[in-house]
């Protein structure tokens, strides 16, 4: 019996199995629901970003209006003088966004664990409280959003189980098995062809679903994201098919095969990832950010209280050009400049504390990565997160970008303060442009 005939027989068997059809339909419904959840998040984040850009623009227009009307700031806050670099930069609204990838439609990943926009100021840091995730029900975050990747990673293997569980076992129980072997010639070929039928069926379904997802967001604008995700899903499907095939090949009856299949699923989907998470939380408990808190309060106070000599030395080390400015030689004006520049030193201390925190997180993440070889579901989840740019590392580089923007902002501010720059409308608009990424 050729493969094509086996395929046709299997098709007949499939269409006559309401249980299998219902399972497939449920899978498709869950996938579509998941794709829409991803698309909704994409839309939501985009709309929010638009609002923030509008808000930033309004803020900018307000300051520009001061320059145009010969004012230096709001009436009720007379201490604000936007013609000074300090106040001009403080009032230069700069948001930095982690734009959602269109591929988020397939996989929400860690997107709900972090903030995706940040108002950059000279006192900002990547661990500010406004970097927290969007307001959400923690019980929902706990159960996670049902996205397409959840359906693929957890339900695809179950669907496959439902489609394959009675291969060979049912025939063996009904006593047809020897007859089938006679007809097909090879037991393995017959089983492989039947497994391949369902694999092909699922591949077509998954491809169709992914194309549907591509209609919801412009996935193809993201280089290779669609194909990377599809190929990974194909690999994942084949991985499960291979495992189930081996169970069916060596299994004795339907019930025992089903139990083994569900056992493997439980092991990979529940037990191993859960055990690793437990292990990590014991090995490396949650970082309570003490280093960061210390810099934010005590270290900052110490910097403010330290001698002028030391402050000047540290500032000149950080920005050597300050040494040659006129203000550096003016014992009166240097006081104000120094005071306004202390933020730069706090920022340096903050960077050191953050480096420690990031290194602590890095250690945890390395432990997780080292378990990938026996933890395929977590590995696949993180791979999909990378393709949809919602991996931990994507947010780590987002934080790094924020830090760079803060550094740049402080540097421009300090240098302009010490060079006694007078800010006008043109200069202000230059600030706005140069403070962007």
């Amino acid at each position, binding site marked *: 019996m050729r493969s094509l005939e086996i395929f046709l027989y299997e098709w007949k068997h499939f269409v006559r199995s309401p249980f299998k059809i219902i399972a497939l339909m449920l899978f498709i419904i869950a996938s579509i629901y998941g794709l829409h959840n991803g698309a909704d998040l994409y839309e939501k984040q985009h709309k929010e970003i638009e609002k923030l850009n509008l808000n930033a623009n309004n803020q900018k227009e307000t300051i520009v209006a001061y320059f145009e009307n010969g004012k230096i700031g709001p009436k009720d806050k007379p201490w604000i003088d936007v013609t000074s670099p300090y106040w001009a930069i403080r009032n230069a609204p700069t948001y930095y966004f982690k734009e959602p990838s269109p591929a988020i439609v397939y996989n929400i990943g860690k997107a709900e664990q972090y903030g995706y926009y940040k108002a950059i100021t000279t006192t900002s840091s990547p661990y500010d409280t406004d970097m927290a995730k969007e307001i959400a029900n923690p019980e929902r975050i*706990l*159960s996670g959003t049902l996205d397409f990747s959840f359906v693929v990673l957890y339900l695809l293997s179950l669907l496959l189980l*439902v489609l394959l569980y009675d291969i060979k076992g049912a025939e063996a129980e009904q006593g047809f098995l020897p007859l089938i072997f006679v007809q097909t010639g090879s037991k393995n070929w017959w089983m492989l062809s039947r497994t391949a039928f369902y694999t092909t069926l699922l591949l077509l379904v998954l491809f169709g679903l992914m194309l549907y997802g591509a209609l919801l967001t412009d996935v193809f604008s993201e280089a290779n994201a669609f194909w990377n995700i599809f190929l990974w899903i194909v690999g994942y499907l084949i991985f499960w098919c291979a495992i189930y095939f081996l169970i069916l090949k060596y299994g004795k009856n339907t*019930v025992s095969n089903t139990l083994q299949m569900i056992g493997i699923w439980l092991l990979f989907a529940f037990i191993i*990832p*859960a055990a690793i998470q437990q292990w990590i*939380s014991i090995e490396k*408990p949650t970082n309570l950010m*003490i280093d960061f808190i210390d810099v934010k309060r005590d270290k900052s106070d110490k910097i403010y209280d330290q001698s002028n000599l030391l402050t000047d030395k540290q500032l000149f080390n950080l920005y050597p050009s300050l040494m040659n400015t006129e203000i550096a030689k003016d014992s009166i004006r240097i006081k104000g400049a120094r005071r306004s520049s202390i933020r730069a030193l706090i920022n340096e201390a903050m960077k050191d504390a953050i480096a420690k925190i990031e290194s602590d997180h890095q250690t945890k993440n390395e432990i997780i990565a080292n378990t990938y070889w026996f933890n395929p579901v*977590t590995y696949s989840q993180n791979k999909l997160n990378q393709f949809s740019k919602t991996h931990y590392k994507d947010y780590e580089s987002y934080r790094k970008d924020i830090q760079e923007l803060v550094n740049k902002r402080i540097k421009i501010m300090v240098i302009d303060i010490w060079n006694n720059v007078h800010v006008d409308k043109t200069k202000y608009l230059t600030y706005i442009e140069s403070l962007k990424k």
Partner: protein
Amino acid sequence: MLQIIKNEWRFLVRSHLFLGISIIFVCTLILSVFLGNYQTQKQKQSHRNAKNHVRQQWEKIDQLNPHSAAHYGTYIFKPSNLLSSLDEGVNSVTGNVLRVEGHVQNEITYSEASQIQAISRFGKLKSSLLLQYIVPLLLIFLAFNSVSNEKQSGRLKLMVLQGAKPFQIILSKTVAVWLYGVSLLILVLVVYGTLNIHNLTSEILIRTILFFISYILYYFIVSGFTVFFSARWHNATLALTSMMSIWILWTIFLPNILMSSAEKWHPLPSRYEFKSAMKEDRSKGLDGHNPTDNRALALKQRVLKEYGVDSLSQLPINFDGIRMQADEDYGNSVWDKHFGNNRKLLKKQKRSYQLGGILSPFISLQNTSMGFMGNDNLHHQEFLLQVESYRRVFIKMLNDKQTYGGSKTGNWGWKEDNAFFRSVPDFKYTPTTISIVFSNYILDVILLVFWLVIVLILIILGAKKIQIV
């Protein structure tokens, strides 16, 4: 009936496969309790260290202006309770650090989940994970052929001839399987109790008993359903696959879909909307740091009139402190409005989700499990409220010191000494008692009982329609 249950257990014990799986599973369960307990201890230690560190910093303040101290503020770390070792609920996603300072109610940040890449979609290897997801599967595997096997081997006919009623047979089979789940549950609780024998309080015991009751109800539902299918369907495979589908629907599909839907039905504001609305409302009130603010000027006139003086310099108190506290009081009304609105929405979401228990008893089990263990969102919100109450007392103490401590208006250089800062009480978390929050879980318990009744009805109906031969 007792005899049938005894026989069922004899059969089970004779099965090497059953014994093997049971031994492995019991070891995993015991390990999960040990690890959960160990993790909670470590977490408590790290929490204690952080708390002491921050408190020491506060107590070391030598001399500082009270309002500067309000800006210096303090940090509260979310404590983990003893019951987290069984079910840690939302703790891994809620954040752990809350900054307490003047002028603003902050949100809790730095969750465990934000510090690592994705690992487990279903949480850590806590006992609750095994008890909620795996034990019911074991019960399904034990029960799916319990009646169909008897039918195929002809023993069912024999039992009926011996005088056993079909209802009794099905019920006994259900109870026999259910007792297996109950024994595992008892094992977990005994190991947990032994490990924490010195820390057990009546509150913990009550919560654990409620936890136990919700699980035994769920296990009976799962066992009853599976035995019913085993009696109803012609072959065991069909019974197994039917129950497996129900398990997937109950535990994987519905909780996820219904929780996401509840959030869509009662949407929370986005962070930007939330912050903007608070900023807008806040701007309508007094600005404590701006003496030229019109509302601050009006307050000044009132205070001057009250003290019968013409200028701030004549006041026996420091008006800056009064202005700061007025700013605080107005701010508090704004935080109450907006944070309160979020809490209302979260409650509505929870209520909608709880109703999902009509479709899936697993939802009710999950709610009661983390609720009775004191780690659901409700308990988390209670913690946040306690922190906010503390913040208000803390800031008021500092503002009152600024006002009545002996300084004059405008004297920002005035400083309080170390004794005062040491006298400011530290935050002390009082765990919410179950008697206060129990009413929130009544619906879940009712739904579990509702499912239990459905199962009993099915067993009765199944018994009537069972084919003996």
